[in-house]
C-alpha cells in the first residue's frame, strides 16, 4: 500500500515537472517574438484608422484580405507562392548580417541568379530532369554568388562599403538582365522582353495546381534549416559569427576577416540567386523583364520582422506573402486599393524598427539621467 502511494507520488511529481517545463517553454516562445507580434498588431490598428478615415470599412477590408490569403486552398497556395522568394532573400540578408554586413543588394543577386538559371534552363534539351533541374538551380546559386563576390572583394580589398556597392550592383543587375532579354536572348517574335520557355526537363514541378506554388518552397525550407546548420555547426559559420560580433578579437584568434567577409557575401548571394532560380524554374518558366516586384528588398524587411533568425523569417515571409496575395483579392472583391496592403507592410516594418531606434537613441542619450 505504502509502495503504491510512493509510486503515485513519483508519478505526480514527474507529471507536474513535465507540465511546468511545458508551461515555461510556452511562456518563453511568445516573449521572444512578442515585440514583433505587437508591431504587427499596431500596424493593423493604424491601417484600420487610415481605412476608416478614408471612408472604407476596416472590417470588410481586413476580412477580404484574410479570406484572400488563407480562405481556401487557392488562397493559401498563392500566399505561399508569394512567400517563397522572400524566404530566400531574407535568409540571404540574415547570413550576411551575421558577419556584420548589410547586404541590401539581394535584389540584384536574385535577378542575376534567375537569369543564369534561365540560361541553363533554355539550353541542354537532351538532359534528364534529375540532372537538368539541379544544374539550373546550381547555375542560379552561382550567378547570385558572383553578384555577391564583386562587392565582397571590393570590401575586403579596398574597404568599399557594402551598403553602397550591393545596392548599386542591384541596378546593374536589373539593367544587364534587362538588356539580355531585350536583345541577345529575347524570345523571337515576341513584343515582351523575355526569354523563350525553359525545357520541361528543367522545370520545378508545381505542387498545388492551379496555384503557381512550386517545389521551390521545399528548397526554401531546406535552405532555412541549412542556414541554421551552417551558422551554428560549421567552422565557417563560427568564423562568420565571430567576425560579425567582434572583428578585432576574431582577427586575434587567427580568423581571416577578409576571407570571412568574402565567404559570407558569396554564400548570401548564392542564397538570393537560388531564390531567383526557383522563380524562373517553378513559377514563370522563363526570365521575364521586371518579373520581381522587389523580392530582394522585401527580404531585408522580412529578416528584420522575423527577428533575424531562420524560424522567424519563415513566419514573417508567410505574413508578407499573405499581404501580397490577400491584397490582390481585397482589391478585387472590395473597392479598397492595393496600396493599403503596401501600407500595412510599411507599417509593420516601421513598428518593428521603431523600438530599435528608440533603444539606440536612449543609449546615445544615456549619459544624462
Amino acid at each position, binding site marked *: 500500500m505504502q509502495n503504491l502511494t510512493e509510486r503515485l507520488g513519483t508519478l505526480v511529481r514527474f507529471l507536474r515537472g513535465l507540465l511546468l517545463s511545458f508551461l515555461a517553454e510556452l511562456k518563453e516562445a511568445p516573449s521572444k517574438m512578442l515585440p514583433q507580434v505587437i508591431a504587427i498588431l499596431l500596424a493593423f490598428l493604424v491601417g484600420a484608422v487610415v481605412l476608416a478615415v478614408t471612408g472604407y470599412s476596416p472590417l470588410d477590408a481586413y476580412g477580404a484580405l484574410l479570406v484572400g490569403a488563407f480562405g481556401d486552398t487557392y488562397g493559401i497556395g498563392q500566399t505561399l507562392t508569394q512567400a517563397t522568394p522572400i524566404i530566400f532573400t531574407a535568409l540571404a540578408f540574415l547570413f550576411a548580417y551575421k558577419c556584420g554586413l548589410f547586404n541590401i543588394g539581394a535584389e540584384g543577386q536574385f535577378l542575376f541568379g534567375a537569369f543564369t538559371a534561365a540560361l541553363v534552363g533554355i539550353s541542354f534539351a537532351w538532359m534528364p530532369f534529375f540532372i537538368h533541374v539541379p544544374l539550373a538551380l546550381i547555375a542560379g546559386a552561382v550567378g547570385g554568388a558572383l553578384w555577391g563576390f564583386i562587392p565582397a572583394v571590393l570590401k575586403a580589398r579596398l574597404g568599399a562599403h557594402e551598403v553602397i556597392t550591393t545596392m548599386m550592383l542591384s541596378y546593374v543587375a536589373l539593367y544587364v538582365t534587362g538588356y539580355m532579354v531585350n536583345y541577345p536572348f529575347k524570345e523571337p517574335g515576341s513584343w515582351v522582353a523575355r526569354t523563350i520557355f525553359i525545357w520541361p526537363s528543367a522545370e520545378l514541378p508545381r505542387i498545388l495546381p492551379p496555384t503557381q506554388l512550386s517545389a521551390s518552397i521545399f528548397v526554401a525550407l531546406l535552405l532555412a534549416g541549412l542556414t541554421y546548420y551552417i551558422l551554428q*555547426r560549421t*567552422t565557417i559559420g563560427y568564423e562568420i559569427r*565571430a567576425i560579425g560580433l567582434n572583428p*578585432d578579437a*576574431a*582577427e*586575434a584568434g*587567427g580568423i581571416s576577416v577578409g576571407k570571412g567577409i568574402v565567404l559570407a557575401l558569396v554564400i548570401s548571394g548564392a542564397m538570393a540567386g537560388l531564390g531567383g532560380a526557383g522563380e524562373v524554374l517553378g513559377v514563370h518558366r522563363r526570365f521575364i523583364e521586371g518579373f520581381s516586384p522587389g523580392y530582394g528588398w522585401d527580404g531585408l524587411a522580412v529578416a528584420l520582422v522575423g527577428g533575424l533568425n531562420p524560424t522567424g523569417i519563415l513566419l514573417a515571409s508567410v505574413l508578407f506573402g499573405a499581404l501580397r496575395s490577400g491584397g490582390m483579392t481585397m482589391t478585387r472583391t472590395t473597392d479598397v486599393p492595393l496600396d493599403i496592403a503596401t501600407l500595412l507592410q510599411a507599417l509593420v516594418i516601421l513598428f518593428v524598427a521603431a523600438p530599435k531606434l528608440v533603444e539606440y537613441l536612449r543609449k546615445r542619450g544615456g549619459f544624462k539621467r
Partner: protein
Amino acid sequence: MRSITKKFADVVANDKIDFTVEKGEIHGLLGENGAGKTVLMNILYGLYRVDEGKILIDGIEADIDGPNAAIKLGIGMVHQHFMVVPSLTVAENIVLGNEPTRSKFLLDTKKIMQSVKEFCDRYKLEVDLKAPIHVLPVGVQQRVEILKALYRGANVLILDEPTSVLTPQEAQELFKAIRALRGQGKTVIFISHKLNEVIAVCDRITVLRKGKVVGTVKASETNVNELATMMVGREVSFTFQKTQPATRKTVLRVEDLKAFDDRNLPALKGVSFEVHAYEILGVAGVEGNGQTELVETLTGLRKAAAGKIWLLDIDVTRAPPHERIQHGASCVPEDRHRRGLIMEFSVMENIILGSHDRPPFAKDSVRLDINEASNYAEKLIQEYSIKTPSKDEQARHLSGGTQQRVVLAREFSRNPRLIIACQPTRGLDVGATEYVRSKLVDMRNNGCAVLLISADLDEIWGLSDRIAVIYEGRIVAVKDPEKTSESELGLLMAGAEPD
C-alpha cells in the same frame, strides 16, 4: 563618518562603515576593486547621498548634498580621470570656477598669474603656469588638479588611485608633495589598492573589504602581507617558486623590428631581443612607448615595416595570426574587450577561438564538433575555476577577473611554446592578479617562453628572469633583476640614458 550605508539596487556598496581621519594626517584607504572605497569617498564629496549614517566634520554634523557643499566644507577631490580643460593654461585651470575678474566680464589676467604664483610658492608645488595643460606630462596635470582643489580652499584632500597613471619617479614626486601638504596642516585621504605605496606614504591605513571596514592600522606597525590578507580575506602569496633548468632554448628571436602606429608614425624603431624557454622576459615601460605595436607585430595583427621575427627558428615575419598560433604562440591581449574575447559569444565559443578550425573541434575541417567543444569547455571551467553559471553563458555577463580566466584558459591550454602577455593584470583585483601571475610562472616552469609586457613595475619585478626596458620604441636596456634597482628601472623608463 559614522555608520555609512549605501546601496545600489540590491548591492550594498557600503555597509555601516565607520571611518575617522585625524587632522593633519595622510590616511590610506585600501581595498580591492569593488570594496567600496570610491563609493565612500564619493559620499564624502557629495556625489552620492547616504542611505543611512552621518558625516561629522570637526565634530559638527554636515549635510553634504553636492560637491559644492563639500568644497565649502573644505573637502577637495582629485579623481582618477582628470577634470582639467586641456587647451587652457595651468593658471587658468587652477582658478577655473573662481576667476578673479576686473569688471563683471573681464578676466584680470595679471591678478590670476599673481595670485596663483603666490599660491604655488606657499605649497612649494612647482609648475609652469603659462603652459597649456595638454602639453604637460600626466604627473604635472595631476599636480594642477591638486592645486585646483587647494585653491578652492580644501583642507581635506581626497586622492583617488593617484598613482595608477604615473611613472615611479612621478609617484615619488607626488609622495613628496603629499608630505609637504601634511606639513602645512592639510589632511590627505589616499585611495589605493597598491600595498607598497600605501605603507610608504600613509600614517594610518583603513582597509575595506566587500563594503565593510576590516580594520585601521598604523603604517609603521604593519607590512605588505598583513595588509594583503586583510584586503583579500585570506593569505596571499607574492613570491613564486621558479625552477632552474640547465638549458634554455631560444623560442622567440626578434631582430631590428620596426613598425608604424595607427597614425603612421614610427612606433617601433628597431627592436631586437630573444626569449628563451623556461624564461620570463619582462618588458617594463610607461604605456604608449610602443608596447601595443610590439605585441600586435609579434602576433601578426600589424605589419612589420622592417626586421625579422623567428618563432622556434621559423621565420614568421610575414605569417598571418593563425599560422603563428599553430606554431605555438599564445597571447593575453592588453584589451580583452577588444582583442581577447567576443563578448556576445558563450564561454564555450570563446574557449575554442583559435583552435576551432583544427581537430578535435573541426571534423573534416568543416563541421564543428559541439560535443567535443562542450567537454573541453567543461574541463577548462573546472581547471581554471571559471566562475560562470554554465559554459553557455555569454562572456559579457562575467566579471573582469573571470573574463581574464577565460582568456588564460584558452591561451594556456593549447600547449603554447610562447606566451605574450600584455598588461595581464590590469583592472584586476588582488586575488585575480595573484592567480594570473602564478599561472604565468607555472607556464614558465613547464617550459614556456613568456614575454611579459607591463607598466606595473612590481609585476615585472616579481616575475621576470630578465627585464628589458622599452622607451620610445626602443629597448634601451636589458637588466638582470638581481643587479638592478627599482629606481634605475624607473629612470630608464623615463628616458634617462643607460650607463
